[in-house]
């Protein structure tokens, strides 16, 4: 039996349901009852219950695309800040996809502290040690562009159902975007005004992620900024 409606805003400790539902995220079970563990939107589909959090740090999981910043180098690779309580480790061989003679080569010529990297999470162990890889096409060191950080919980909204929001952002602004699950978004564009417009749009999505009709509002906002010719 359900005690909340779909897309209802719930708080920790709030009773969601009683019975044999399957918990996907953001909730926990005590005996027969299921409670929310976070502030978020109740998402109910058939026998599945989840609470989509509206806040929270990014916790790396396998397969995620992330945008990291190099904060340290070691003998065989780099440590990346992932906007998370957990840093990521990137071995040289996972960036260059070939063997490197570490005695001969200075790996800082490939990546140095402060560089931004698009990577994929290869593996996470029980101690939350994170291995990254960045050798595949579409991954690797980032040049130019603007880096924006938003609340990671809002990233799914930046992508949208079947990529609809991301498409809108790119097609209307003419900019190219790369979205990291860890709350970071890279924006590249010829027209600085449109880059800034995309930043505005991202901040709007962050603020209004849990409302409906957002994709249309964002499209309208970008069209307006485009025709206005900047702020």
């Amino acid at each position, binding site marked *: 039996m359900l005690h909340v409606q779909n897309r209802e805003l719930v708080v920790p*400790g709030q009773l969601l349901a009683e019975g044999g539902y399957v918990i996907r995220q953001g909730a926990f079970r005590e005996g027969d009852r299921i409670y929310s563990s*976070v502030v978020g939107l109740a998402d109910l589909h058939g026998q599945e219950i989840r609470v989509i*959090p509206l806040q929270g*740090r990014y*916790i790396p999981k396998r397969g995620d695309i992330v945008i990291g910043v190099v904060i340290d180098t070691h003998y065989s690779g780099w440590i990346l800040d992932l906007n998370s*309580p*957990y840093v990521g480790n990137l071995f040289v061989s996972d960036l260059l996809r070939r063997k490197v003679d570490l005695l001969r080569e200075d790996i800082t010529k490939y990546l140095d502290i402060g560089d931004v990297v698009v990577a994929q999470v290869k593996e996470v162990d029980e101690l939350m040690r994170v291995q990254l890889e960045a050798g595949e096409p579409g991954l690797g060191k980032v040049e130019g562009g603007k880096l924006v950080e938003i609340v990671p919980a809002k990233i799914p909204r930046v992508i949208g159902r079947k990529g609809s929001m991301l498409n809108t952002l790119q097609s209307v602004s003419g900019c190219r975007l790369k979205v990291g699950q860890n709350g970071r978004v890279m924006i590249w564009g010829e027209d600085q005004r449109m880059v800034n417009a995309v930043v505005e749009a991202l901040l709007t999505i962050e603020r209004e992620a849990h409302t409906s009709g957002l994709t249309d509002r964002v499209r309208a906002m970008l069209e307006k900024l485009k025709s206005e010719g900047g702020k």
Partner: protein
Amino acid sequence: MEKPERLIVDGKRLDGRAPDELRPLKIKAGVLKRADGSAYVELGRNKILAAVYGPREMHPRHLQQPDTAVLRCRYNMAPFSVEERKRPGPDRRSVEISKVAREALEPVVFLELYPRAAIDVFIEVLQADAGTRTTGITAAAVALADAGIPMRDLVAAVAVGKVDDTIVLDLTSEEDQWGTTDMPVAIMPRKKLITLLQMDGHFTGEEFKQALALAFKGCEQIYEAQKLALKERYSVKHEEER
């Protein structure tokens, strides 16, 4: 100020309240930009700010726990928060309060989800009028939820005491100073579990039970205000408010 002859006259306390009445309460979530979660609470003349950073990397590394996050709490009073200026920095009272506040909040947090990490809770008393530790815990619970940290429930806290042989809810500093007993209580309202309990003064066994019951009643009201503050934070406002 000299001790008034009576602290309760005709069923009314010095500030006009009934024995089981809370001071005016205001809670706002998400008031700071840098912190991961934050909350501002006014209870009577108390003005308390709580902020949470976390989960985040734990330093020093040798204090990391391999299978769980570590919850750290720091209660601090601003020098101008009390009548006689308080020197900056932790004193023995602040250290004790930091400890019991942490122990009041820890039971609700799912620490095991974040191995090796730290969750830092900061309670800043900007203006004090008795009940700062319980108000601080109330604020901290909202700040933890505001940070998106998974919790079993919120924690609501309030102090009860005895003045003029009457059990009262939510003491002011005069009542704390001139009354006989002060008992701060924090609870997980959903399961009615007590996570903080301290007392100094005098209670008979019967008075103690009454006082606890009154504390529960007060915490229920605070709990409703906490939940409302969190919900309000995420309701869309058409005019940008900050």
